[in-house]
């Protein structure tokens, strides 16, 4: 294996070998490529790369030190193009001084995992994030009312942390809950077009989200409820999200399919968050 390296300094061959064995034994990776371009990403040919069972390309860059700005180009390209890549830096174990900690922090901020290798012991100091998922616009939690900030931050963490379906689902939960509350409270306050009814025409908490939203499209008059932005197009947008509500993360066929899937999820997550913001703003005067 050592002879296969053309760029890696010979003093780091053993570190590369330990890292390879670690990913084979502990994480089930196999068929490593050595020093080849990955998905045509610019800025780096990682020392080792292999495709995991979720069709992400796991890259292991073997270096003496953890971080250098030359890695930024690769990270940026992966994020911008949504490339389904995880990058780990494997370094020889060293004294954990201030410079080391600063390097680990910087790598971590960029979604890079860090492995420390000493003899046959490999320690994961930081886990890598899926770079295809970390390129989302950060949540401006302050722009939301207090009660949404926690859930939105958690949703973003879930998304960036490798569970994009769960992250999307958490945002959908908030939109659905707000839609149901809107329906219930406007009905109770007699603000529907059909006027004050004695019995609600649907079960606000139990009927499907789609049914509740379709009822709102029929019954809500933006002017009557004093919410001019609570428009049909907004409800239409919410209805557009409903089919994705209960989607589970299904297996993808290959890395290209993973790339496409993550791009869809990224768009969906950002879109759902924007829809939630629009709905929150549109219903603000109702004090739901």
């Amino acid at each position, binding site marked *: 294996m050592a002879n296969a390296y*053309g*760029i890696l*300094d010979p*003093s780091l061959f053993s570190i590369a070998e330990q890292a390879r064995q670690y990913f084979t034994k502990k994480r089930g990776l196999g068929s490593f490529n050595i*020093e080849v*371009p990955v998905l045509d*990403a*610019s*800025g*780096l*040919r990682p020392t080792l790369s292999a495709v995991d069972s979720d069709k992400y390309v796991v890259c292991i860059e073997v*270096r*003496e*030190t953890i971080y*250098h*700005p*030359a890695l930024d*180009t690769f990270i940026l390209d992966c994020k911008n193009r949504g490339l389904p890549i995880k990058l780990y830096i494997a370094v020889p174990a060293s004294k954990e001084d201030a410079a080391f900690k600063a390097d680990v922090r910087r790598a971590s901020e960029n979604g890079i995992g860090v492995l420390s290798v000493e003899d046959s012991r490999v320690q994961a100091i930081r886990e890598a994030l899926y770079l295809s998922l970390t390129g989302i616009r950060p949540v401006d939690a302050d722009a939301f009312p207090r009660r949404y900030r926690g859930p939105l931050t958690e949703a973003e963490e879930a998304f960036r942390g490798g569970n994009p379906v769960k992250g999307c689902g958490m945002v959908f939960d908030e939109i659905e809950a707000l839609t149901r509350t809107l329906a219930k409270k406007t009905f109770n306050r007699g603000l529907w077009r059909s006027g004050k009814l004695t019995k609600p025409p649907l079960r606000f908490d139990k009927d499907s989200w789609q049914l509740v939203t379709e009822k709102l499209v029929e019954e809500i008059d933006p002017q009557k409820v004093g919410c001019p932005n609570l428009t049909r197009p907004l409800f239409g947008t919410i209805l557009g999200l409903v089919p994705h509500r209960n989607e589970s993360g299904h297996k993808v066929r290959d890395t290209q399919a993973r790339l496409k899937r993550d791009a869809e999820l990224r768009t969906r997550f950002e879109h759902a968050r924007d829809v939630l913001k629009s709905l929150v703003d549109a219903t603000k005067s109702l004090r739901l």
Partner: protein
Amino acid sequence: MSAAEQVGLADIEVDNIDRNPDNPRVVFRQRELDDLAESILSNGVLQPISVYREKDRFVLIDGERRWRCSRKVNLRTIPALIQPKPSPLDNLLMMFNIHSLHQQWDLLTIANKLPRVTELLSDRLSKPPSEKDVAEATGLPRAVIRRCRLLLDLPQHYLDELLDELKKPKPMRRFTEDFFIEMERALKTVQNALPQVLDSEEKKEQARAALVEKYDKGVIGNMVEFRQLAKVARAKNVEVDTSMAATALKKLFTAPRYSIKQAYDDTVSSAYLERDISTRVSGLIELLEDLNPNDLDDDAILGLRRLATLVAALIRGRA
């Protein structure tokens, strides 16, 4: 004409290039490579590398760092000056001469290739090349060639250790080429001046091991101390009993806590001091004898008065 056929400047695929097995340079420091990679990412490869054609591929003559970095940052092609295939000797000498223009190689990398240069030069000249021949062919100063030869006298395990050290950033290195060169020079002096102290290769190797350990443990504080070791070996020059010097050196090579400074103080320190004073005094007397008092300014007179006072006090003290 394809890139593979032409001679001149061309963009060549980085994957179509092989490193030159004769490149003396074996250490490529991470920090240097990182900085170059960053520059290549920002500005591209500004200076073409040099290659020659070997069947359908290319072999590097100059620019291994640029080529490595270009591959590392995933460039597809690199600008290259394609040259005719050189003879084995010219191949090696061309790299020496190019690199002596660019930057200083580690001495060990040069040393490692010198035997091959010498061998190929012997074939070309039909005689063993002199130091001057090697210097002219490689563009290296003769002093550098001598230093390389001292390194080559080291047993292989020290050369391996030194190579490992060279891969580290400078502040993290325990041993340097200079350390081994200073040590080897001193041991050579011991061998020449007091052959009974190091009368076999085994003893010389034991002495090396002892000195390396002492340096590692701080018993020897500075590699310059090896010059004092050589002075102890040259005890005869200052009329000190050579058997005393030999005993001190034997102790130096066996007793773990005995330092070079102690060996120097126990043997030749005062003799060298006396010789130093005598030499300086003789020179000063010679100078003063030729002086006209009117040539001296106030500062010089003040200095001489101070000297006279110190000399008088020293003589009185001895009395």
